[in-house]
């Protein structure tokens, strides 16, 4: 299970809609199981079907997160048409076994879905998301 600050959830969904028709992406930081800050980052692919986070931007963000005594705990991206579940490429490119993958689907605008997963050695495990104040 992970805990996600309600305000952060709103930021994730809002950013996903803002980036449409491109996939949105970014990272989340926190402590323990609580994801408390969202850092929106550029999708270098500028695509509606894939994302790649600019390494330079990512490195700067990781250092910023560390300076706040937080840890990068999760990566976020949106799916425009597909469900909020890791694609084959998401799974293949999940290099960091410790990172949580948060995926939001905009396929059904009235019921935007946000789900969390752990991906290790190609195996996907869904994590329950509990909203925190």
């Amino acid at each position: 299970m992970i805990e996600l600050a309600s305000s952060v959830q709103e930021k994730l969904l809002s950013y996903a809609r803002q980036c449409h028709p491109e996939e949105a992406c970014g990272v989340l930081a926190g402590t323990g199981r609580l994801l408390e800050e969202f850092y929106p980052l550029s999708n270098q692919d500028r695509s509606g079907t894939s994302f790649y986070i600019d390494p330079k931007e990512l490195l700067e963000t990781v250092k910023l997160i560390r300076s706040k005594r937080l840890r990068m705990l999760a990566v976020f991206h949106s799916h425009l048409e597909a469900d909020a579940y890791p694609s084959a490429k998401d799974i293949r490119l999940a290099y960091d076994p410790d990172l949580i993958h948060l995926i939001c689907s905009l396929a059904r605008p009235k019921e935007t879905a946000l789900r969390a997963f752990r991906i290790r050695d190609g195996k996907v495990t869904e994590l329950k998301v509990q909203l925190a104040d």
Partner: protein
Amino acid sequence: MPTRPPTSEIQITFNGRKKRLKKNYSVTEWLLREKRRPERVAVELNGVLLQKSEYATQTLRSKDVLEVVYHLGGAA
């Protein structure tokens, strides 16, 4: 009894943590030692993003600041 030559350790900062190294590893050697596959990571050395081709030739020196992140990408 033969005397050992003095061990020349170097100290680097790796992802914000001080590390003592017993030799001047190349970036590739260090990544493999840290169980990170070089093709899966981006590396910044003293504030400069390295090209993949530099990983094998760039040698770590004392007081170097090394930042390593996994590439983050995917698709729908």
